Each structure stands twice: as C-alpha cells, then as structure tokens.
C-alpha cells in the first residue's frame, strides 16, 4: 500500500513538473543553445550505438526467421517480417531502452548531482526556474531527436536483415527480393505508428529521469540510487506503455 502511494505520488509530481515546464514553452527560443546542446547529447552521441544495435537486431531477426520460415517455404517473406517487426516494435522499443540506459541515466545523474550539491537551490534563489533551464530543453530535444534516431535505427535494421539474407548460405535471398517483400506489406501508417511510439517513450523517459533527478534528497550516495531508480522505472514504463500504446494505435482505423 505504501509503495502504491509512493508510485502515485511520483506520477503526480512528474505531471506537475511537466506542467511547470510547459509553462515556459514561450521561452524555448531563448533556450536555443541549450536545446542544440541537448540534441547533440541525446541524438548525435547516441547515433553510433543505435545503428550498431538495430543493424544486428535486424540481422538476428533475419537469421532466426530464415531458419523458421524455410520449413513453411515462406523464405521470400523474410523482408516483410523483418521490416514490420523493426518498424512497428523493435525499432522504437530498442531505441527507447537504449535512450533510457544511456541518456536517461546521464540526465538523472546530472540533475541529482546538481540537487545534492545545492546548484538547484542556487538557481531557485536566483529566480531561474530549473524547469525552464534544465527540463524544457531536454524535453524539446527528445521530441526532435527520438524520431530521427528511431528512423535511422529502423533503416539500419532493414539493411542488417538484407545483408544477412543475401550472404547467409542457408537463406540466400537476394536483396531485391527482400526489399520487394518489405515494400509489399509496409504502409506509411506502420512507420507513423512506430515513430509515435518512439516519441511517447522518449518523452516519458526524459520526464521520469528529470523528475527523479530533481527529487533526489540526501548525499552523494543518493545520486547512484536515483540513477538506478530512473533507469528501472523508465524500462518498466517503456514495456507497459508499449502494450497500451500498441493497443491504442491498432484501434485507430
């Protein structure tokens, strides 16, 4: 019961933080250098790992589906399977998990450290709202960078699948066949659904990580505890939201 109340309390506080941050949306233009800095940190520095991760996820998916689908004589549809799985599910979820571990943890660590060492208090006494200076640029940056990262990741996954199909002896499907199958069943709506999911995941991750960073109390040990809490909470939210957002998107005609 106490745990449930604590979770509800955190949810409420995170929503309040969001409300307070959105109040400063008008100042976003003034925060442009910070926004660009966050885009660099969230997007550019995550790009290599996103490409590697999704490339190999696409490759493994092609390998596994090639092995299974050969029994049904449906090898020519590997492109469809890899394409749809990557764009609708694996792309957004894997990029979100990566962002939670890499970017979310860094956000919480930075804000928690600022809180513990009274930098946040200093901002408040200087009448500089931390929501304006620290939260809003990060939320804006994730909104811009998450679809970009996901799209690049999806393309890498498709490419990884295509290379695996072409150069794995047991599959031996030409790239042209692979991409023809991929295009045949892929709709713009699938890409849009994947990007909507990625956007929601990214936004929630940054909000959770900012909230847990700013609500850190105590000494340096609490910084580590907050980072762990932020990553675990983000991962849980990604998976829970994945179910509900997918269900919701499937209901939309």
């Amino acid at each position: 019961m106490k745990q449930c109340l604590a979770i509800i309390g955190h949810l409420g506080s995170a929503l309040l933080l969001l409300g307070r941050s959105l109040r400063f949306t008008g100042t976003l233009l003034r925060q442009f250098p910070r926004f660009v800095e966050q885009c660099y940190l969230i997007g550019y520095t995550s790009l290599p790992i996103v490409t590697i991760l999704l490339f190999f996820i696409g490759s493994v998916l092609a390998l596994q589906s090639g092995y299974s689908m050969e029994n049904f004589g449906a090898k020519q549809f590997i492109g469809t399977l890899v394409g749809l799985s990557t764009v609708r599910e694996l792309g957004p979820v894997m990029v979100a998990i990566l962002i939670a571990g890499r970017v979310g943890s860094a956000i919480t660590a930075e804000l928690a450290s600022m809180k513990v060492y009274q930098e946040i208090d200093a901002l408040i006494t200087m009448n500089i709202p931390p929501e304006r200076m620290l939260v809003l640029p990060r939320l804006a940056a994730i909104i811009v960078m998450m679809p970009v990262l996901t799209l690049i990741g999806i393309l890498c996954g498709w490419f990884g699948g295509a290379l695996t199909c072409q150069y794995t002896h047991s599959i031996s499907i030409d790239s042209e066949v692979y991409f023809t199958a991929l295009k045949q069943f892929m709709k713009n709506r699938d890409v849009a659904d994947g990007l909507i999911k990625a956007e929601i995941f990214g936004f929630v991750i940054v909000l959770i990580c900012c909230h847990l960073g700013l609500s850190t109390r105590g000494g340096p040990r609490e910084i580590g505890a907050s980072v762990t809490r932020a990553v675990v909470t983000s991962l849980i939210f990604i998976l829970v939201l994945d179910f509900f957002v997918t269900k919701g998107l499937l209901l939309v005609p």
Partner: protein
Amino acid sequence: MSANFTASPFVGKTFGVTVEHLCKSYGESAVLHDVSFEVRPGEIYAIMGPSGSGKSVLLKQIAGLETPTSGSARIGNFDAADPATRNQVRLALVFQAGALFNSLSVYDNLALYPREHRLCDEAGIRDRVMHALHILSLEKSAGKLPAELSGGMKKRVAIARALVMEPQLLLYDEPTSELDPVMSATLSEIIATLREQTAVTSIVVTHDSNLALSIADRISILMDGRLRATGKAAEFKNHSDPVIANFLNPVIDLQNPRFKQLEQSHE
C-alpha cells in the same frame, strides 16, 4: 585586495526581514522552535550558534527554499515561502559550499543571472562580471571551472556571483568557513563595505564570533533550534549568560577537557 564598490546603490530599495513564531520539523524531528526576530532594512544581522543548532535551516526558510511547518518568514511585506516573492525581491544566497554550477566556467557562473534575466547586453554583462571578479581578486580565474578551484576560491566566486546580482537582500551561510584568517578578515571587510555602499540588508549565519562581532549590527544566538539571546553586537562582547559567553569565547581547559564531558553525556 580591493574592497571598493561602484555598483549602483540600492538605498531605499532594500528589504527588512521579519521572522514570526517560525517552527520547522522534518517528520518527527523538530529543528526550529518558535523563532522570532526582525532584521531592519540595511542592517547586518548575524545568526550565531553551534553546529546543528538550525542556523542553515533558518536561512533556508528566509530564502524561501523550504516552507516553515508553522509561523512565517517575511521579506518586507512578502511571504518568503511564496515563489512569487522572488519576482519582487532580488535575493542572493551565498551557500556554505559555494553551490557553483560545475559545468560552467567561473565567468559563466557569474554571467548566468544577468543573462537569464536579460539585465543588459553582453558587453554590460562582461563589465558587471569582471568588476565583481576584480573585487574578489578572481580575474585570473575567470576561465577556470569550479573543479579547478580551492574551497576558499569557490567561496569567493559564490560571493562574486551574489554581487553580480546586485541583491536587495543578501544571505550568507557560513561565509568564512574554509577560508584562511587573512581571507576571513578580507571577507568581513567586503560584507561591511558592501552594506555601507549599497545599503543591502545582510543576514550572516556563522559560528565565527570574530566575523559576527566585528561586522554585525545585531546578533541572535540560536541554540537547539531556539533563540537564546538577541541584541546589539557590543552586548555580546562580555555577555552575562555563561553559556553564550563560553560559546563566543571558549576557554581551552587541558585539565578538564571538554570532550570528556561529551563522552560522559553520551554515556
């Protein structure tokens, strides 16, 4: 080190502080009990007390960083706990550990306030920042990161950052801790000169009796979360209360060491 200020004077724009029946508890633990005092506009007011007596907690209530459990702290006619007060009163707090922004250089730490509040153009900001750095002999450290500074230098940067704000109420939390005697004396001069030239109300939380007795107009002694005495600084030089007299001028008695008394009290 120079202690001349050419910052625009704030005479008439400074605020007094009124603390009335203020209590603060964290869960079951009560830290401040019914604390009341008044700081007049333009005054240097020292709050002294032993470690753990609640001085810094009291300062947080005045700065509006925490909300009192009961009672109130007011800056002029504004409630200190109300965030809107910060739009009315330019308040600067010099934190005990500096609380500098570690990712910013010393220059950018000082420039943050005028930039965020768009007080002037970049040339004006540069003048303000360099002037504050000059006052505290920190010109050569402008490009350094806080991590590259000593504890004392961090404290001076924190004071310089407060000066750039041209505050109407200036709060110091243990300003002389981690400073050598010469720097402590210089800092005392800076606090006093700043008040003289800008008439800024200053509240100094300290357990440095030299600092308090030399610069404060009035002093309050806080012990175990309660105000034990309040009066003019001169009254504390030979105080009749033996506890206060012993706190302000502790006598080192090697025949009857104090730590043995502490040991006995813990038993």
